[in-house]
C-alpha cells in the first residue's frame, strides 16, 4: 500500500468511525432531555429509568467520540501537514468556536451524569439540554469547516500564495448551510432509527414493554420527523452541489456527457473507460429538474472537466445510490409510522411495524457513511476544491501504511467493545429497571 493511499484510508477510517459516535453523542442528549422532561412532569419512574439507561449509552458514545475527535485534530496534521499549514489560518475559525462548544458540552455532561439528586431537578434537566445544544453546535461548526474544503472562500489564491485571508467569510462559505442542514437531519434520522430499532427488537421479544415502549416512541418520533424532512434538504444540497461542484454532481449521478434534458440514472454500474453506465434505469429530464429545477436545462457532464481534475465515478455513484435508497426507505417507514400514530393506533403494537424498525436499525448510519463517501470522494482529486490537490497535501513521512494498520486494529477493537458494552447494557435492563408486577406501571405496560 503506498503512502498516499494509506493516508487517505487512515483519514477515511478515522472520520468514518468518528462520525457515528459524534452523531449519537450529539442527538441522544435530546432524546434524554425529552424522557427526562416526561419524568419530571409525570413522575412516571419508567421515564427516569429510560433517561438513566440512555445516559449511560451517551457517556460511552461521548467518550469514544471525544477521543476519536481529539485524534482527528492531530491526524489532520500528521497526515496532511501541507494542507493544514495553509488551510489552518483560513478555515480555523469554526474549529476554534467548536473547541468552546465542545468544552461546554463536556462540562454540561459532567453536571448531567453526576448531578442526579444533587441539584434542583430542572437545573439538572437544563444541563442535559445544554449537552444537546452545544453538541449540535459543535457538529455544525465542524461541518462548516468541511464545507470550506468543498467551497473554499475567504482568501485570494494568487501564484500559489494565500492572500487577504478572512476567516469569517471562510466560515460562512457557500456550502456550509446546505451541508450543516443535511448532516444535522441525517444525524437525527440515523440515531432515531438506530435507537428505535433496538427498542423495537426488545418489544418484539416482549421484554419490559413499559420501558421499551416509552423509549421507542421518543426515538422513533425524532427519527421519523428527520427522515421526512431529509429529502427536502437533499434537494437543496443537490441544487447547491450542481452550482458549486459540477464535477461532484456528475460523478455521483454518473453523468458522463454534458446534455440538455439530462436523465437521472438510477442504480447501475458506471464504466469509466467506456464512459457509460450499465444496467441502470434512466428517467429522461429528471436530472435537469433535480439539479436546476427545469427539465430542459443543460447539466454539465464529466466530459467538460479536464481529465486530471475528474473525480472517480464508481464509488461516489454507488454511495449516492445507497444513501438515496436508504433515505427513501426510512422516509417510507416514517410515513407509515405517522399514519399509525394518527389513524391506525392498532398498528403501533403490531409485530410487522416493529419489524420494519428493527430491519431499519443500521439504515441511517449506512446512509450517513455513504453520504460522507459521496462528499469526500466526489471532491477528489482536490483537498481544497480547485486550489490544492490531495496528493500535494500528504505528509512526506514514509511508512504510513503501518500507522493505517495500527489504527484499523484499534478502531476495529473499539467498535467491538462498544457493541459488547451496549449489548450488556440492554441485557441488564430487566434487572436494573424492571417494575414489579401488580404496580400501576405493570398494568399500564
Amino acid at each position: 500500500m503506498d503512502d498516499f493511499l494509506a493516508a487517505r484510508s487512515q483519514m477515511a477510517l478515522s472520520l468514518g468511525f468518528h462520525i457515528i459516535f459524534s452523531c449519537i453523542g450529539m442527538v441522544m442528549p435530546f432524546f434524554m432531555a425529552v424522557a427526562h422532561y416526561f419524568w419530571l412532569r409525570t413522575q412516571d419512574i419508567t421515564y427516569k429509568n429510560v433517561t438513566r439507561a440512555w445516559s449511560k449509552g451517551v457517556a460511552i458514545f461521548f467518550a469514544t467520540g471525544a477521543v476519536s475527535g481529539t485524534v482527528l485534530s492531530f491526524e489532520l496534521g500528521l497526515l496532511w501537514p501541507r494542507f493544514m499549514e495553509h488551510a489552518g489560518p483560513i478555515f480555523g475559525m469554526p474549529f476554534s468556536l467548536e473547541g468552546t462548544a465542545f468544552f461546554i458540552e463536556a462540562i454540561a455532561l459532567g453536571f448531567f451524569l453526576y448531578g442526579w439528586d444533587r441539584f434542583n431537578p430542572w437545573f439538572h434537566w437544563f444541563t442535559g439540554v445544554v449537552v444537546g445544544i452545544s453538541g449540535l453546535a459543535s457538529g455544525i461548526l465542524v461541518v462548516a469547516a468541511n464545507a470550506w474544503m468543498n467551497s473554499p472562500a475567504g482568501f485570494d489564491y494568487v501564484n500559489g500564495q494565500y492572500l487577504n485571508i478572512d476567516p469569517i467569510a471562510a466560515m460562512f462559505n457557500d456550502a456550509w448551510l446546505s451541508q450543516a442542514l443535511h448532516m444535522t437531519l441525517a444525524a437525527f434520522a440515523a440515531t432515531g432509527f438506530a435507537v428505535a430499532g433496538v427498542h423495537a427488537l426488545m418489544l418484539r421479544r416482549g421484554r419490559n414493554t413499559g420501558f421499551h415502549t416509552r423509549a421507542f416512541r421518543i426515538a422513533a418520533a425524532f427519527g421519523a420527523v428527520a427522515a421526512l424532512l431529509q429529502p427536502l434538504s437533499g434537494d437543496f444540497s443537490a441544487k447547491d452541489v450542481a452550482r458549486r461542484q459540477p464535477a461532484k454532481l456528475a460523478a455521483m449521478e454518473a453523468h458522463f456527457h454534458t446534455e440538455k434534458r439530462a436523465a437521472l440514472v438510477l442504480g447501475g454500474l458506471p464504466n469509466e473507460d467506456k464512459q457509460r453506465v450499465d444496467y441502470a434505469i434512466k428517467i429522461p429530464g429528471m436530472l435537469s429538474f433535480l439539479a436546476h429545477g427545469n427539465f430542459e436545462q443543460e447539466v454539465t457532464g464529466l466530459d467538460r472537466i479536464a481529465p486530471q481534475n475528474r473525480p472517480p465515478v464508481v464509488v461516489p455513484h454507488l454511495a449516492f445510490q445507497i444513501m438515496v435508497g436508504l433515505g427513501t426507505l426510512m422516509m417510507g417507514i416514517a410515513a407509515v409510522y405517522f399514519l399509525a400514530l394518527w389513524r391506525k393506533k392498532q398498528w403501533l403494537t403490531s409485530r410487522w411495524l416493529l419489524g420494519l424498525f428493527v430491519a431499519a436499525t443500521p439504515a441511517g448510519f449506512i446512509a450517513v457513511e455513504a453520504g460522507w463517501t459521496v462528499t469526500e470522494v466526489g471532491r477528489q482529486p482536490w483537498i481544497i476544491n480547485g486550489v490544492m490537490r490531495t496528493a500535494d497535501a500528504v505528509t512526506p513521512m514514509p511508512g504510513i501504511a503501518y500507522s493505517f494498520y495500527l489504527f484499523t486494529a484499534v478502531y476495529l477493537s473499539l467498535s467491538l467493545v462498544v457493541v459488547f458494552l451496549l449489548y450488556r447494557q440492554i441485557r441488564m435492563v430487566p434487572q436494573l429497571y424492571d417494575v414489579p408486577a401488580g404496580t400501576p406501571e405493570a398494568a399500564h405496560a
Partner: protein
Amino acid sequence: MDYVVIAYLYLAILLYLLLGGADFGAGIIELFTSRHNRRVTHETLYQAIGPIWEANHMWLIIAIVILFVGFPRIYSVMSVSLHIPLLLLLLGIIARGTAFVFRHYDAVHDRMQSVYATIFVYSSLVTPLFIGIIAGSALAGYVDPAAPDFLSAYVWSWLHWFGVAVGVFTVALCGYLASVYTIGEATTEADRLRFIRKTRLLIVVAFAAGALVFVAARYEGLPLARWIFGNLVGLTAIGLATISLGLLWYVLARGLTWLPRVLAGFQVTMILLAVGYAHFPSFIRLRNGPHLSLLEQLAPARTIEALGWALLLGSLFILPALGYLYYSFQHVSRPPSPEPEAALPGARTL
C-alpha cells in the same frame, strides 16, 4: 491580540498539565498501589475525577486548535518531525479515555473490569511519558525539517536522553499532582495517612526525576541550567517553587484540603514559567540553532484577531461553567446516591 493568543496557548498547556496531568496521575498511582489498597484508591480517585475528567482533557484540544489556527507552520513542523511520538500519544489517549469510561459504564461487573483497569493504568503512564518526550523534543534542538534520511528526520528528532528524561519527569509530576489531590478526598484517617505517605514518596521521586532532566541535558550538551537560572524570572520561579515545596511538606500532615493542592499547582506553574520564559518566544528549537518563534510564525492578522476574540468570548462561557463544575463536585462527604440499582448485585452505580 498576538499576545492574547500566545497567553491562551500557554494557559491551555498549563491547565492541561495541571488538570489533565492530575488525571493521568490518578492512573499512575493506581498502577503503583498494592493490590490490597487498589480498590479504595481507585474509588477515591474516581469520586474525585469522575465528573470533571472529560473537561480536563479539553485543554489539549484547545491548545492544538490554537496551534493549527494561529501558528500553522509550527503545527505542521511538529506533525511531520514528531509524527511517531504524536501517534503513540494518540494511541495512549484513545486507550485511556475509552478504558476509563468502559470500566465505569459496563453494566456487568466481571473479569472485563481487570482488562479495562490494566489498559487504563498502563496508558495513564505511557501518555504523559510521550507528552514529556514531545515537550523535551521542542527544546532539545534535534528537530530538523531538512533532514536527509528517515532516522534523523523522524526518529532522532525525539528519541534522545533529554526527551526521555523530560518524559519521566512529566510522569512523576502527574503522579505527584494526583496524590496531593487525593489527600483531601480520603474518607478514612487510615487512607489519608496512606495518601500522605504516597505524596511524600512522590515528591522525592519527582525531585529525582527533575535532577535526571539536568543530567540528561548535560549529557546532550544542552545548557539547561543556564537557560533556567540565567535570568531573574527563572531563578525566582524555581526559588518560589522550592520554598513552596518545603511548605507543602510541612503542611501535608495538617489535614488541610486546599492549601496542599494550591501549593502543588503553584510549583508546576512555576516550573513551566521558568522553562517557558527562558525560551520565549521560541516554541521549537531546530537543529543547528534556528528557532520556530511564536512571534514570527503567527498566522495573518485577521486570523489572529478572530481567534483571539473566539478565545476571549469562549472563556466567558467556559470559565464560569467550569468553576461551578469544580465547586459543585468538590465536597467529599456527600451522601451516597440513593439510586435503586445500588442495591442490586452485579450492577454498579454511576
